[in-house]
């Protein structure tokens, strides 16, 4: 694990963020504790930009042929390749979007671009306090023709693509939606999504012998997930800080100002300075601040989330501009103002601020977005450039609208049919 500590590796997300991702929720011994497990697995952080790997086990590295510094900070998609089934990728994306577990058979590639069949099991780790997903555990179980005999050895990679080819077909015939094996896994039940198998499926195409092999592998994957999850729970800093099951509904956690992890995944792709404030909470506190906002204003995230935006104002701020913002919020309308704001170090800057209401799936205003643009150095004649910077602001607003409409609170997520 010394690779992880090396700040000079070719890591793709900054090493601090990767370290903090583990250090904040768990004890300092977490690396060691995880290192004792021989499974092939990774931990990913959905609240960091691009959902990067923050821990990779020795088994995973051995199996895929990568070094730790080559994978830490990167999104897991590097395991995919040209023959990877698109629909299977969608199944994983869907699970992450719905913040639940899934198990799929997927064609992955080693660093040497050697394809292998992987039984991939994804499971979320929830925060008890906020209901968000803190990490995803991804367990890889390589499959080969005779994986039954090799069940004890996780490092065997089949290089026979054509032999495994038939399995894709069988896999595609598996149910399209919720994982067929979901019932073996606690959190699906907790999400109330277990009993959705109401329609007849064309699922009978599994070859008997393949199914045998599969079940064994599946059990193995689930055992691995359980061990890692229980290790994480044990290493959790505060008592009961981490849970294997969601103990707070998405709507509940949204109602106390928590941005869920799947919405966070969309928001971290927007490279603009912006904040989201929740008008449904007292004094309209900030519930999310982008990295670029923190960079612009000099504050830390924990210093701004939970506070009303007015801390940006100072002695030179024109009350008329503030009034204009208030009025547009009152009418649920967007507005642009040029307002003097202050950084944490009291340095003033001219902010060309765009404020707009953003609606959730229910059509009601879920948040106000404020997109900041530092125009201190821009002179008034610079109309053309100002325009395109403004267009970027509008682009951010659009992207936020799309994300919030689909992902905020209960959002557009599936629910169980009432009987």
């Amino acid at each position: 694990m010394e690779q992880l500590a090396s700040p000079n590796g070719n890591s793709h997300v900054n090493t601090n963020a990767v370290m903090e991702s583990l250090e904040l929720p768990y004890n300092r011994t977490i690396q060691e504790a995880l290192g004792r497990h021989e499974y092939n697995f990774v931990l990913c952080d959905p609240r960091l930009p691009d959902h990067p790997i923050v821990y990779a086990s020795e088994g995973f590295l051995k199996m895929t042929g990568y070094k730790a510094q080559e994978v830490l900070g990167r999104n897991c998609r590097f395991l995919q390749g040209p023959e990877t089934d698109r629909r299977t990728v969608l199944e994983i994306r869907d699970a992450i979007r719905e913040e639940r577990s899934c198990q799929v058979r997927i064609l992955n590639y080693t660093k040497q671009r050697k394809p292998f069949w992987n039984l991939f099991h994804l499971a979320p780790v929830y925060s008890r306090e906020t209901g968000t997903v803190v990490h995803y555990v991804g367990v890889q179980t390589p499959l080969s023709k005779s994986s039954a005999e090799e069940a004890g050895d996780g490092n065997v990679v089949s290089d026979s693509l054509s032999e495994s080819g038939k399995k894709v077909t069988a896999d595609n015939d598996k149910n399209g939606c919720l994982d067929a094996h979901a019932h073996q896994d606690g959190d699906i039940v907790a999400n109330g999504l277990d009993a959705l198998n109401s329609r007849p499926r064309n699922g009978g195409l599994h070859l008997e012998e393949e199914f045998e092999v599969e079940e064994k592998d599946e059990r193995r994957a689930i055992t691995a997930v359980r061990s890692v999850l229980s290790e994480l729970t044990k290493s959790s800093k505060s008592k009961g800080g981490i849970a294997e099951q969601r103990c707070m509904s998405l709507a509940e956690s949204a109602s106390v100002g928590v941005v869920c992890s799947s919405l966070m995944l969309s928001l971290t792709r927007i490279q603009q300075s912006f904040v989201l404030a929740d008008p449904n909470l007292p004094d309209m506190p900030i519930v999310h601040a982008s990295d670029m906002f923190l960079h612009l204003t000099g504050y830390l995230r924990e210093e701004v989330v939970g506070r009303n935006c007015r801390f940006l104002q100072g002695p030179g701020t024109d009350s008329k501009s503030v009034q204009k913002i208030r009025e547009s919020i009152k009418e649920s309308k967007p507005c642009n103002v040029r307002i003097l704001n202050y950084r944490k170090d009291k340095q003033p800057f001219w902010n060309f601020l765009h404020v707009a209401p953003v609606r959730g799936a229910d059509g009601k205003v879920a948040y106000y977005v404020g997109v900041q643009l530092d125009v201190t150095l821009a002179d008034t004649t610079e109309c053309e450039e100002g325009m395109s910077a403004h267009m970027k602001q509008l682009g951010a607003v659009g992207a936020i609208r799309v994300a919030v409409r689909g992902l905020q609170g209960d959002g557009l997520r599936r629910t169980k049919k009432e009987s």
Partner: protein
Amino acid sequence: MLTIRRCPTVVSNYQETLDQTTGCGHNCLGACCIHGAKLPVYSFVKFPSAKGLGLDFYGESDSSQVQEFDAQHDPVQGPALPFLNTLILAQWEDRLSRGLFRYDVTACETKVLPGEFGFIAQLNEGRHLKKRPTEFCVDKVLQPFDLKKFNFTKVGQEELLFCFEESEDKGSNYNEMVFMKDSPNVVIINVSPIEYGHVLLVPRVLDCIPQQLETETFLLALHFALEANDPYFRLGYNSLGAFATINHLHFQAYYLATPFPVERAPVRRLNDNEEQDNDVKIFELTNYPVRGVVYELGKSLEELVHVVSRACNLLQNCNIPFNVLIADRGTRVFLFPQCYAERQARGEVEPDILETQVNPAVWEISGHIVLKRKENYEMASEDYAWKLLTQVSFSEEAFSEIKHLIFSSDEGMEQTSMAGNLEKLNLSQLGKDSAKTVHQGLNNGNTKLRKNLSASEQVCI
């Protein structure tokens, strides 16, 4: 001629005022105004290499490639939104702030219908008001362009977001002011949006191409999806007879940050896995109310375009209405032959389904259903969606005929003429059907390939 009466959707603010066709009096997208105008242009690279596809095979949002470990993207920020995406969203938001839309679609309530499939329903009371119902012919998939009817050259330039042109150099780029000549591919807003970012892509607007799918224009649509590179931005196409209302070639697209039910639906591989030649993987849906074929991009964009547009060509030439969904950033294409309009024209759609006034075009078929009335929205269930879509689908028997039609031409029979295929199909039809059994089939909720309906079978409403 088979017809149904329905209210056309108002896609442009210039649609309603258009009974007089001479002179435009505004900055329109016709030759009179577009030539010499300076318009924003996004240029894309035609046939990018697998590497340049950016969309990659590597899942989410990444433009960096596997073998390139040199951190091309900002190490702190991760991959940004693709530029085309930001451009569409920014321009759309700008038109929203200018008040060009008939309603704020984000204020329309939407929900997922409880159940496994996750059908999405939206209550949209603003989309369908005003217009008087018009007679639509449902059994002519190819019709000549009619200059007298509304078309996209009549649209005002403020409804244009940008032009989408092939790049002359190696990279994609954007230029806010380009002197217009020729016939640009335009991206315009739909003033009655189904979701945020609803736009229409009109290939070579001045060429006045009727609604039909050809290789070149389908390639353009795929490029649009590839460049936007967002799994939640899909393109759709409705043929005439499959609920297209404007006979001027256009694709639709919008954002919705959830998988469509059809994208989750299980599939069965149709072409052989082992054959190296099969660059495009072909599947059929196995557990979905509408039967359809799914194409998956392999290494060659050209091959995908070839296979899909060939199938569409056969369908439209055989007068079979169909819908196309381009999903997963242009890597998966769904093709649905459909016969709802015909059933409707024949009075064979069940009254409780008809009563909800949903026109099952590409979005509905994919599982996103827009309802006009609150009571329908509140009562909507997975069973309703399933029932509605079942009536869109061809019967199993007819669908296998259709598969026969579109695949017999793909299996190495490059030289087979269209006429040959048609003949083959007709023969298989004639072998089985008489007009009588066809009608029986229809009454049983089935239908048939229509291309050789005799005059005696035609119904007018």
